[in-house]
């Protein structure tokens, strides 16, 4: 029976190193989400404004983020800024900047959509009861918006976690990079280890994202 790399996975500190790499990926996405979600909420509110200038600027921002592959953004921020401005960004910092930039845009669009989805009649029936505009937002609009938004933003976080696998391209040593290093180191003794080790990465990502997806599904059902 071929050696599938199980032995390598459990040898020495390999497993611990891979989990450390997973933590790097999670850290980047969680920090980016923690920064991107609040600024995305602000962006979403700005996107709802009728001002044509803010409309065009926010639209442009969203389109740029959507059109550019994340990898290009990563290269632009990590390598580009060094050449242009002489900044010497840590790879992880560059990754967080890019993911926050991306997360803010995506979250902004989710918030815009959720706010737009509250029918005008909800505002009116609140107003007809004598509620002031701040009270209408506090008791009617924001609670309904949050209910729509929480499952969507959780999905955004899982998408971010998955996309962090790109950051190894700018030299961040996350789970995938660690795994490559281990495979490289065992190339002669265990030439078939790649299958088992990448399989382990698959399981790690699954275990990290699955509970989050379950939570999103649960909240969606509860609040639909």
């Amino acid at each position, binding site marked *: 029976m071929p050696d599938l790399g199980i032995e390598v996975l459990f040898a020495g500190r390999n497993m611990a190193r891979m989990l450390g790499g997973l933590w790097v990926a999670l850290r980047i996405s969680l920090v980016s989400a923690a920064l991107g979600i609040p600024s995305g909420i602000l962006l979403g509110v700005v996107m709802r404004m009728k001002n044509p200038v803010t409309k065009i600027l926010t639209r442009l921002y969203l389109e740029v983020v959507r059109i550019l592959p994340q990898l290009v953004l990563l290269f632009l921020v990590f390598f580009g800024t060094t050449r242009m401005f002489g900044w010497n960004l840590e790879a992880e910092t560059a990754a967080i900047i890019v993911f926050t930039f991306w997360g803010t845009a995506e979250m902004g669009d989710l918030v815009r959509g959720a706010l737009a989805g509250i029918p005008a*009649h*909800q505002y009116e*029936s609140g107003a*007809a*009861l*004598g509620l002031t505009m701040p009270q209408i937002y506090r008791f*009617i609009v924001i609670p309904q918006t949050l209910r729509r938004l929480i499952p969507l933003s959780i999905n955004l976080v899982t998408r971010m976690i998955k996309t962090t696998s790109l950051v190894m391209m700018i030299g961040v040593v996350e789970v995938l990079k660690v795994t490559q290093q281990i495979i490289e180191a065992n190339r002669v003794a265990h030439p078939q280890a790649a299958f088992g080790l990448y399989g382990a990465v698959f399981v790690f990502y699954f275990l990290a994202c699955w509970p989050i997806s379950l939570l999103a599904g649960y909240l969606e059902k509860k609040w639909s």
Partner: protein
Amino acid sequence: MKEDLLRIEHVSKSYGENRILKDISLTIHRGEVVVVIGPSGCGKSTLLRCVNGLEPIQQGKITLRGELIDGKSRKITAIRQRVGMVFQNYELFPHMTVLENIVLAPVKVQKKGRREAVEEAEKLLARVGLCGKEESYPRELSGGQKQRVAIVRALIMEPEILLFDEVTAALDPEMVREVLDVLLQLAEQGRTMVIVTHEMAFARAVADRVIFIDQGNIVEQGTPEEFFGNPKSERAKKFLRTFEFEPVSGKTAGAGSAVQSVPGI
């Protein structure tokens, strides 16, 4: 002579170039039930929305016991507490239970004690036949039940005047009655109401006065006996005829011959 509660004086309202209400004047007395009828798109909803300041008007003025109703004024929230409004599509708050829907405004706007508001809500729910639905969510209720909750939500504010905008138009026929019965009950209590409806038999029964609007004008008004029994204007006659059906001619001659008599078949 009864006290004038609501005065609509020479009100005109446009959406852009479109003049929807044209120099409308109407005074509603305390305790009066006014039914507004007219073809779809003639401006009935617009009129009600102007009365509680949801739409700005371009000319004229609307006053509630002498106080100007102006959607842009800071006092508008105080006025709206005195004007109850019920919409065609209920417009309950979907994230709140029936009870929360009802006590929100008394607690947050009128600053009533929660306990007192809940007691009042339960009393009113019982009166419209919705005992035990306090903890339900709107999505768990039928259309007729939702509309009765919406009526209670307006009533609990103890408004001086109630506006109903086609409150049975979205309901299945078997639920229309349960909502109209609530309105009849309110009329018996002597409430001041403006009711927009297409239920002609109900209008006849509940109205003190019928207002017929067409193309943004009050074309005709009178007691239900006058209006339905002997409409004066051509437009009112034509409108009322749309609710009548002639027996299908040739029906008695048998289906086969009826089909043959249609040209082209």
